[in-house]
């Protein structure tokens, strides 16, 4: 399915609601399976980054290769070296005691004085993780309450909440596949998705339920507006991704990548999942 704005003619008239939800439903099931598998093997649905698992992350600019860096830090529990553009390097270390960590900071400040260091202890990471989980749950419940209060009809409100849920689950599964860890930054991005993914759903529901006219026209009108909304956010976030990529700003790269993934699934879930449920609801109500 290609979604190039202005070029696509959104017309779901010839499809039944059941046909429309096939693709998103299949993706949702696959995502849930992926997350559950991860949950069983690692205890977390998404791989936690050092913010939650504890460890040390070092960002530095150097022409040294990954192998040279591994040799430099051979005495320390270096777990991962990844490379950005412009000589940007990201190093991850496992847990260390205070003395070891101090000697690591000494070494780094001596060899790479311009580095950025972030160290999170294991218990502190666990505290952060617990709080992050609570934040996500409360955010989602809060969002659902606002939606139910604002629409006051069960099926349309549920459609919005289900779409938002599917967005999050699919995004989380994709993070696992392409290896973006759950950090404070990506948690923020997921929370942002809860808020933003309902934007176009609310627009769609409002247009379909509150406007006069043929369903197919209302859906098309809503799509024309909605796809622009998503495109603008997509454009802003892409800009952020490109700049942060060039500048090796890890946290912004992660946040923007998660937002972009989420926005793609948002298009899918709004215009297939949510639209299908709404179509089914309107047809059922109209048939009475």
């Amino acid at each position, binding site marked *: 399915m290609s979604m190039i704005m202005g070029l696509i003619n959104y017309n779901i008239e010839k499809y039944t609601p059941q046909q429309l939800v096939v693709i998103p439903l299949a993706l949702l099931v696959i995502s849930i399976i992926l997350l559950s598998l991860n949950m069983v093997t690692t205890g977390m649905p998404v791989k936690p980054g050092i913010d939650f698992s504890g460890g040390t992350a070092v960002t530095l600019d150097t022409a040294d290769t990954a192998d040279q860096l591994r040799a430099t830090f051979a005495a320390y529990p270096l777990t991962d070296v990844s490379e950005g553009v412009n000589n940007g390097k990201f190093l991850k270390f496992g847990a260390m005691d205070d003395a070891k960590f101090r000697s690591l900071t000494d070494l780094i400040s001596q060899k790479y004085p311009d580095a950025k260091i972030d160290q*999170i*202890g294991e218990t502190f990471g666990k505290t952060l993780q617990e709080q992050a989980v609570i934040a996500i749950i*409360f955010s989602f419940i809060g969002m659902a309450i606002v939606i139910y209060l604002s629409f006051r009809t069960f099926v349309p409100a549920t459609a919005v909440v289900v779409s938002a849920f599917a967005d999050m689950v699919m995004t989380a599964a994709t993070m696992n596949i392409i290896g973006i860890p759950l950090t404070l930054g990506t948690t923020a991005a997921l929370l942002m998705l809860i808020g933003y993914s309902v934007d176009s759903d609310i627009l769609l529901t409002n247009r379909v339920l*509150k406007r006069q006219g043929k369903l197919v026209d209302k859906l098309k009108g809503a799509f024309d507006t909605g796809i622009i909304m998503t495109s603008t*956010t997509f454009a802003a976030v892409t*800009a952020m991704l490109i700049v942060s990529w060039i500048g090796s700003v890890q946290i912004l790269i992660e946040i923007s990548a998660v937002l972009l993934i989420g926005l793609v699934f948002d298009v899918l879930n709004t215009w297939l999942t949510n639209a299908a449920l709404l179509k089914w609801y309107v047809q059922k109500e109209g048939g009475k």
Partner: protein
Amino acid sequence: MNSKEIMGIVSDWRVAILLILVVLSIIAIYPHFDEQGHPASNLQYGLDLQQGSWIQLEFNAEVVGFTTDKQTEEFVTDLSKWLDTEVSLVDATHVEIRKSYTKEALDPVFADAGGKITSYAPGVSKATAEDVKRILENKINQIGTKDAKVQTLTGMNNVARYVRVELAGVDMKQAQELVGKQGKFEIRVMTVGNSSEHVLFGDSITSVQMPSQSPPGSDKWGVSFTLSEAGATAFQDAAIKYGATKDPANHYLNMLLDNKTVYSAPLSDDLARQLNTVKTRQLYASTGTGKAGSTAATNLEIHLRAGALPVGVTIAGSGGVSAPLGERYKLMALLAGIFALITVGFVIYYRYREPGIVLPMVLINASEILILLGFISLIKFQMDLPTIAGLIAVLGTGIDQLVVITDEILHEGKVPSPGVYVKRLSRALSIIVTAAATVFIAMLPLALMDLSTLKGFAIITILGVLVGVIITRPAYGKVIMEILSK
């Protein structure tokens, strides 16, 4: 558009408020060149956008709720003895234990002492946390860094588990040393003229109490502290040897921290008489009356501790950014913002192909960011990278909502009558308000929790939503109406 029409738009109160806020924001941000000719502003940067470091310490202590049939004082004393550590009463049903124990380890001890645990939370009481905060601030002041922040993270149960120190312009090594460092404390006694003799060092002081009034309830402040057996002997010997017991007024006792005198006073007559015959471990240094006395007592308490914290801590997390990296992040953040605004402008232009619509949209969008930045400057909020991400997301969704308004008003026919316009605008606003409410609610948990750097991000996103709904969207509704009805 002629000048009369422009005046018509500007004098609309919604547009007028927007313009006034933009001007105020620019004043608040105050972009200027500093003495060296570098661009500068009132914006404050967090630790990932400027050189600095942070250390988060975890308290090795816990606050435990209890019930007991025994006398509370007796119970607490017993606990302290059994656990061989300082145990103090927080309130009638909670004690603070200044050593790390799991709940499982404490259960039998409480049972043996004749009580039962009703709650368990790692951390210290608010009062102890404030104490720690004061001591750390005092240490930081000694190195004179211009921009330091000490923050205790207190949970909803009033138990503080962490304290976070942020130091701008200080590298990680320095910060680690600073937080770990203890001063050299010494008591000396005046002999003849300006000479003095050593009495004891800080290691002879076994505990220091919080400032108190003596007699209790009076306005006379001071600090009690306890000496070790050896320290008490040394104190008595020196006082007798150098004549402080016979002639207190001419043989002041001086307290020095890192060789600087921080307290100087004679022995009280009572104490002088007593020291002639018996040594004492419990001493009380009075600091005067009223507010000044109380402040002096607080400082003396810190000095007596010589920078040692009243409770053990471990480093829970730390980090630091170098000056060049901070500068680069700042530049990247600025570029990302500008680049985002431009690409958003292109997308909007692609859709509407009408400069008369696109220009106001982009300008309103930019003004929203400007107002947010103005507000950030005003409240001296420290911007960090997640905040920047929040601002860019506000940019992206801000324009979304302008699209909703435009499309709603443009729906079926370009020139709406005022009545239809109001109806369509209110329909658009109802969509926007619902969307804004969900973002607000979704971000609220983060804004209320102490999830490290994400608090700032959440607050900025919420502020962005509020500025949008209350100020910029209504103004845009008015502007677009004027433009479309031409």
